[in-house]
């Protein structure tokens, strides 16, 4: 019988030996980014992906008490008994709870949370098999499938929507969505424009006001219009490109797709605070890139830090400045 601590130690020592440095100090004697690449390359794929997914469930999980409790218990179980991460039951508990949560509140669950639950089921299946080769095939296939699905389905739904194609959606959000107010200010749209638009929409919503023809003029700004059109074309083209490039399954196209995906993660989640989505995209990207493109794998590792740091209240700072 081994204790939790000794099991934990074995994980630690495995990571240390895997770091490839006899001194146990992986960062000595090489450039910092080189060391990071080396470090990323030597990570155990399944363990890293499992750990990153566990973090995701604990900090950006489903907003439901059942999932909160199960995710925390799973983290506690892992801390006390690290081997549990390799057991299918561990992932079954999380995946099943995620599925129950979705079924209970499916109209309210954001689309990207479904992605989290699919990924939990994928990890459950991966851990059902003992042969590493088979596990690898499952996880690589699913990571690619879900990245393609995410970006191609998103592009399809966007291109099929008239309010997206016309740039109406992004312009409207730049005015009324508080998440975009700070970003808007950064690109030169005065927050007072958004305030004025919001006030006018209140006339439409209030039962104590009747707007002639239910049609109301807003002030708006040309800059917002231009920004919205640029955001629309940038967003649709990047997403379509990532989805299509990953579909081709060639070394070169994959490399470009990863660079675009990294660009997407690093830029999108600054204005859009859906960190869980960024995290899961990064987990899938890392899964595909780790063994084939070590530099890109290291960049994905950095993206996790970036996503955590994007939670800084920079919007308030910008709006106050």
């Amino acid at each position, binding site marked *: 019988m081994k204790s939790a601590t*000794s099991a*934990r130690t074995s994980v630690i020592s495995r990571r240390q030996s895997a770091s490839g440095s006899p001194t146990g100090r992986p960062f000595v004697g090489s450039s910092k980014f080189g060391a990071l690449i080396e470090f990323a390359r030597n990570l155990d794929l399944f363990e890293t992906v499992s750990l990153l997914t566990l973090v995701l469930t604990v900090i950006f999980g489903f907003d439901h008490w059942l999932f909160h409790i199960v995710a925390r218990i799973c983290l506690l179980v892992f801390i006390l008994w690290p081997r549990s991460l390799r057991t299918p039951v561990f992932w079954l508990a999380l995946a099943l709870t995620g599925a129950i949560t979705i079924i209970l509140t499916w109209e309210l669950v954001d689309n990207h949370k479904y992605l989290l639950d699919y990924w939990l089921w994928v990890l459950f299946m991966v851990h059902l098999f003992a042969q590493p080769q088979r596990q690898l095939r499952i996880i690589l296939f699913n990571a690619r499938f879900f990245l393609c699905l995410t970006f191609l389905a998103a592009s399809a739904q966007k291109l099929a929507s008239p309010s997206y194609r016309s740039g109406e959606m992004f312009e409207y959000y730049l005015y009324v969505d508080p998440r975009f107010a700070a970003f808007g200010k950064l690109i030169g749209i005065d927050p007072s424009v958004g305030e004025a638009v919001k006030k006018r929409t209140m006339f439409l919503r209030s039962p104590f006001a009747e707007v002639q023809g239910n049609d109301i003029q807003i002030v708006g700004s040309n800059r917002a219009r231009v920004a919205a059109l640029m955001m629309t074309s940038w967003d649709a083209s990047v997403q379509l490109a990532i989805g299509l490039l990953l579909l081709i399954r060639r070394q070169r196209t994959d490399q470009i797709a990863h660079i675009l995906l990294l660009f997407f993660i690093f830029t999108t989640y600054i204005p859009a605070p859906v960190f869980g989505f960024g995290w899961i995209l990064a987990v899938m990207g890392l899964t595909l890139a780790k063994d084939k493109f070590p530099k890109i794998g290291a960049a994905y590792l950095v993206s996790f830090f970036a996503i955590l740091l994007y939670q800084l209240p920079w919007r308030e700072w910008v709006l106050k400045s």
Partner: protein
Amino acid sequence: MNGSSDQPDHQLGFFRYSSRALIICMPIVALVIAARQVYLSNYHGLAVWKGGGMGMFASMDGQANRFAQLFITQSDGTRQPLTHLLRVQKDAIDNALNYPVRRNFLAVAKSIATIEWASSPERMPVVLIDSKGEPAGRASESYHMMAPFRPRSRDEKWKGNIQIEFWKMSYNPLTRTCHATLAQTFAFTPDEVQQ
């Protein structure tokens, strides 16, 4: 895992000389902070639940049993209550109720003064309530309701004093009566609250 892998360079400089300091440092800090909390809660009204003592569930007198009433007063002595507050103002009030010093209520008043307030067209009568909680007629006063209208522009001067009444509730289990006491009234002039 044991400590054998720890290197001597882990040790923080100061504590290299005093191993006892490592052990008793935090207890001393905790005692100092607890003493400060007891002092502030006895002499400056700090809620016993906050500030680093151990007074959770030690007294009725916490934020839950304190409340504030806010008024804008005019030079003729009339005053109108602020009935709909913004989130940021509610947070500032919670903060001031936990530690009811003038400085904290001034922060509330400053936050009020950043907003332009609109009053309802009709006056609302003040209802008299008897000790059983039943309406027992109308009081002599009546007020307009005041609600936030829009952020005040910086060039516009704030007019009117802001008056904040700080109330406390107590409960007498023998008579089963709840009593509200006006603990203090804070008044702030336009100059004080001007940002």
